Structure formats: C-alpha cells, structure tokens
C-alpha cells in the first residue's frame, strides 16, 4: 500500500471537504495501530492519509452529570487519567489495556475503536455501556449506536468517507463491572483479547446484564443476556452454563480460536457465579 497524499486539516470542515475529494482517505489520528499493523491501511493501490491531530475539536472532553462526550482524538492516557466518577468504569480499564504509557500518549479513542482488522480494547467496553458515536461525512452528521458499527463478522466496518468525531457514554453506575485483558498481553499484541461485563441487580434479581468478549471479533449474545434478566441471584449452575455455552457458540461462529472460545466461556461463567455477591 502506498500513500500518495497527506492532508493535515486544522478544522473538521476542512477534513470533510478533503474527504469529499478523496473518499478513500484513511483517517489518521495517533497512527500507532497503522504503524504496528500496516494492513489497517487496506490492501492494494494507493491511499491518501487524513491526519486529524491538528483538529482541536476532536481532542475535547465534554463532561456533564449524565454522560461524558469524548472527542475521537482524545488520547488513551487522557482517558485513563479521568477521575473515576467522570468516566464509565470499563472505559478507563480499556484505555489502560493498550501498550505502554508512551504508546497511550499517541493512541486515540477513535483509532482504537475504528480498528478494522480486529476489535481493540475499547469496543467491548463501549458495547457494554451502550455508547453512541457521532459519524460525520461530507453528506452530514448523525449519532449511531456503537453496535451499528459492528458488522456480521464481529469487526468494525465504518462507512466510507466517514469520520468518528465524538463518542458519548452514559455515566450510570453499575453494581458490578469487570474488565479483563486476556490473551498474549497488552494491545497491540496480536493475541490480546478483552473480556468486559457489567450488571445491575434490583431486589435480588438481575435487572441488566452485558457481557462481551473481543478476540479476533466481538462476541456478544444479547438473547442469552435477556434470558438472565429477571432471574434471582445467585444464578443457578444451569443458567450460568447455558449462558457460557451461548457466548461460546457465538464466538465460534465468528471464527475465534478454540482457546479463545474456552476462555470466554470460562470468564463469563466465573463472572456470573460472582454476581451472587452483588
């Protein structure tokens, strides 16, 4: 892959005008993932690089009482440094699951979320907290659920000529949160994987449950999650095993390695067994 042009706009308007001319342009925020894995650029032909780091509005954080809005070029270190009450708990852990301090200074939320080859650490966290994402293209802007960015293959597929500009996460509290970096080590290790789970309980029953595992693809079974809502805590062994089997089935359908399938089943089982302590 060859880069035939580099644009470094200083405003979002300029960036969108460039995307209109070059819809094939690859948005380049921190660029750490592209540097570590050039296949993120795509294969064959030549592309243009759209360097986003000069666009100040993409680096802003907009906190409110109910949600946190993050510019897509907010660095992972900025995210990790936010006070606990100001950030959805799994998101901070997801930021820390990437590389070293020096890498996290360059790596951005938008870059991490938009990784095409495989999901990175923030996708399962954002999926669990039902984040919404602002997409902007030369045709206009819209807010969409983070789930709508995930294709049938469990990987992120952004529309062409579209930029992730902001990510909004609710700051509702969860009764139980778990985030685990698994696999070979911190991202961008090729075998890195993430397990993320959030739950709420009310009057001794499960009122909300989200469990996601991201290895080569994002695996989540919403049907199995819904099945457990309303069940009394502690969950029965049968319920826990049925959930683990459903998530493992989904992971297998997405082509995860058998070791990863076993891991996600085991982690989901351990998490659900612990839920009785909520």
């Amino acid at each position, binding site marked *: 892959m060859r880069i035939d042009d580099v644009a*470094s706009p200083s405003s979002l308007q300029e960036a969108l005008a460039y995307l209109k001319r070059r819809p094939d342009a690859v948005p380049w925020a921190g660029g750490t993932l592209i540097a*570590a894995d050039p296949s993120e650029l795509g294969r064959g032909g030549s592309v243009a*690089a759209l*360097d986003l780091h000069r666009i100040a509005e993409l680096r802003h954080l907009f906190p409110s009482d109910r949600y946190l809005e993050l510019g897509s070029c907010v660095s992972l270190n900025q995210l990790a440094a936010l006070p606990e009450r100001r950030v959805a708990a799994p998101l901070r852990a997801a930021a820390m699951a990437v590389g070293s*301090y*020096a890498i996290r200074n*360059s790596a951005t939320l938008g870059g991490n979320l938009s990784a095409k080859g495989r999901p990175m650490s923030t996708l399962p966290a954002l999926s669990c907290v039902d984040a919404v994402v602002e997409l902007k293209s030369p045709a206009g802007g819209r807010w969409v659920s983070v789930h709508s960015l995930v294709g049938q293959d469990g990987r992120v597929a952004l529309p062409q000529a579209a930029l992730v500009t902001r990510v909004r996460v609710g700051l509702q509290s969860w009764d139980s949160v778990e985030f685990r970096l698994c696999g070979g080590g911190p991202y*961008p290790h090729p075998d890195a994987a993430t397990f993320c789970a959030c739950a709420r309980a009310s009057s001794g029953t499960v009122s909300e449950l989200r469990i996601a595992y991201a290895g080569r693809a994002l695996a989540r079974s919403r049907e199995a999650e819904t099945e457990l809502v309303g069940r009394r805590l502690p969950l029965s062994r049968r319920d826990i095993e049925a959930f683990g089997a459903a998530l493992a089935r989904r992971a297998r359908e997405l082509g995860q390695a058998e070791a990863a399938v076993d891991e996600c089943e085991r982690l989901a089982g351990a998490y659900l067994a612990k839920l009785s302590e909520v």
Partner: protein
Amino acid sequence: MTIDLIVNGEDLKIRAEPTERLAELLRRSRAAPSLTIDCGGGFCGKCLVLLDGKPVASCLVPAFRARGSEVVSYEGFMSTQEAAEVEAALASAGARLCPFCKPAYSLALGFIAENRARMGEAEALAVVSSVRCTCSDPSAVAEAARAILGDAREQRMGRAHR
C-alpha cells in the same frame, strides 16, 4: 513532503516520505543520533522522545504527525536542568544502563521530574515501564523514579510547613 519541526530547540525543515516514521526521520537527519530503533513496534520504547512535551514511541509516530511540533531527544534533554538530577537519581539507585536504553530511560525520568508536581507514583512507574531493555534492572530505574518523585514531595511538604 517537507516537515517543519523543532528538534532540541533548532528549527528544521526535512524532506520525508509519507510512510516514514518520526524515529527514522530523526535518525536520517542526524537530529537525534542517540535514538535507537530496535523492535519497531513500540514495545521496547528505546526510540522514546518527547513530542510536544509528552513521551512517545517515535517508531510508531508518522513523520507527518510532527509537522509544526517540538521534539526533544536525549541530546536536547542533556542540556536541561533536570538532566543532572536524573543522572544522580540513576547513580544512587545503582542503575547501570547500556547506551541503547539510557537515552530513553533518561527522557522518561526527565518527563517525571518536569511533571512531578501533578504526578503520582503509579503514573511515574507507568512512564518508566514504557522502556524495556535486557541490560538493566527495571527495579533500579523504578527506584530512581521514586527518588525523583520523593524529592518533589519533600519540597512540597517543606513549603507547606513553612
């Protein structure tokens, strides 16, 4: 393309390929001869430089990202006030560093020294763990980082008591 940047206080205009990385640019232009490119994937951290005041793995940073930015490498750091303090902290911690990792560790410790007023121990240890080298004992570098932070705390407490 031409990249305008400031390296160690000097304005430079360097021609670069679009796919070139900052580490390669700095080596090729001889602006940072001490910089080592080892793993090329950001894991070893030996290519660490300060980009606009923050430590980054320059092997992962595209050269075009440095347009209009300020880069400080080990050569530039050695002329700062913090350099002598970092050297002393490394010596008293018994850290014997090889020439491949010493520049990166020194920059990391210099960053801690410069930002210690708002930095906790966990963050300082995360900064130094950005660098990995088989020559050195990471615990000695961590001790140097704690010593640098500790000095700041003592100064802060001294001011508070006064």
